[in-house]
């Protein structure tokens, strides 16, 4: 062992520095960055957990009001049923005619198409063709459907037609009035004929 001192110093320095470098850069540093990653992951999980927990808390509150919610939903389902349920529309027309003191002459069912929000049909030509957007193909895809229905009533005053329309509107089934056409005949006593074109709605599951 006759290494010169400088060589010993050199080997010692190289060994210590090498060891430190290997230890720090190849073991400790990856561990540290790994820890940072895990921590970041934990934070994001914790965040989504907190959101979830808040949601559950909200739901717990809603569950306490579940009967009210169910009742509200039942009301909505009655207004917009899952199936066409045209019997309800017929029932509605009969009830409206009775309540307004008019005579129901006719109840007709038109096409069922995909729902489009009311766009204001103005001309008679446009009224004849149902709203422009829906095509026959899309009706099957959209869960929201609208069915055109029309009611014809006879009565002795035009005011009663308005009343009939109001009874239709406020009935158990949701109705969108599209057109109200009223004309009085020339006979005496006068016979007023009212035709109400409307839409009823279906929300498929």
């Amino acid at each position, binding site marked *: 062992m006759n290494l010169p001192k400088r060589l010993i110093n050199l080997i010692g320095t190289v060994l210590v520095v090498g060891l430190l470098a290997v230890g720090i850069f190849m073991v400790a540093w990856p561990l540290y960055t790994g820890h940072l990653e895990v921590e970041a992951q934990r934070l994001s999980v914790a965040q989504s957990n907190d959101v979830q927990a808040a949601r559950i808390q909200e739901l717990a509150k809603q569950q306490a009001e579940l009967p009210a919610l169910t009742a509200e939903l039942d009301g909505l389902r009655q207004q917009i049923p899952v199936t066409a349920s045209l019997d309800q529309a017929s029932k509605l027309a009969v009830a409206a005619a009775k309540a307004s003191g008019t005579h129901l002459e006719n109840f007709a069912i038109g096409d069922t198409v995909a729902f489009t*929000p009311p766009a204001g049909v103005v001309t008679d030509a446009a009224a004849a063709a149902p709203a422009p957007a829906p095509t026959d193909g899309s009706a099957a895809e959209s869960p929201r459907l609208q069915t055109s229905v029309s009611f014809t009533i006879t009565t002795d005053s035009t005011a009663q037609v308005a009343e009939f329309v109001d009874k239709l509107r406020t009935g158990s089934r949701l109705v969108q009035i599209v057109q109200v056409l009223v004309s009085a005949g020339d006979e005496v006593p006068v016979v007023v004929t009212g035709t109400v074109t409307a839409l009823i709605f279906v929300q498929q599951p």
Partner: protein
Amino acid sequence: MNLNIRPTKLPPAQAGKVPRVNLMPASEVARRERRVLLRNWMLGLFATLAGLGLGVGAMIGVRMGAELRLAEENQRTEQLTIALAGYADVTKSLADRSALGDFRGSAAANDLPWTELYSDISGALPGGVTVRGFDLHPGAAPMADADPATAAGLTGTITCRSTDPGDQRRMVTALRKIPGALAVDAGKLDYLETDATYEYVITFVADQTRYTGRFAPEGGVK
């Protein structure tokens, strides 16, 4: 004044101690120095190793702590998912309610109070005028960025009869004053010889302020 010239800084005599003479051969001195150096380097190496071991150990601890906390958080996720599944009926009811509510709001966006409108119109009739018929269409759904007072909410015609043809103009004037009237004008006028009366048409447009908005979603129009 001290005139003593004997130097005072001389070290005192050191009796009984080893004389300060290095009798070690130079090679032995170098060997010992190398040994000390080597031992110091070995010590340094071990200290480095020990330090590294401590550091790495601490890092492993930190890392494992993080893993543990992550595992805990993941467990909480599972618990929350289970808890959420328990509320499936509420979740579904809420989703259905908002879907149906939206649908209803948009389907009945142009809902109008017909009786009220009719009584407004008939209240504006001059004496002797009778409404013979009307043809009215509700308008489009309100737009978020449009003023409801300038958009057509109800469009159509009203047909009336009276013995005085001047009633048409009077009626137009009266109808223009009813709340929500947007555009009212006179249409054609005919004399019916059989009844000796005049039949005339009035075009009528009411604005969207007449919409009831009873099913409008909370927070206004979308």
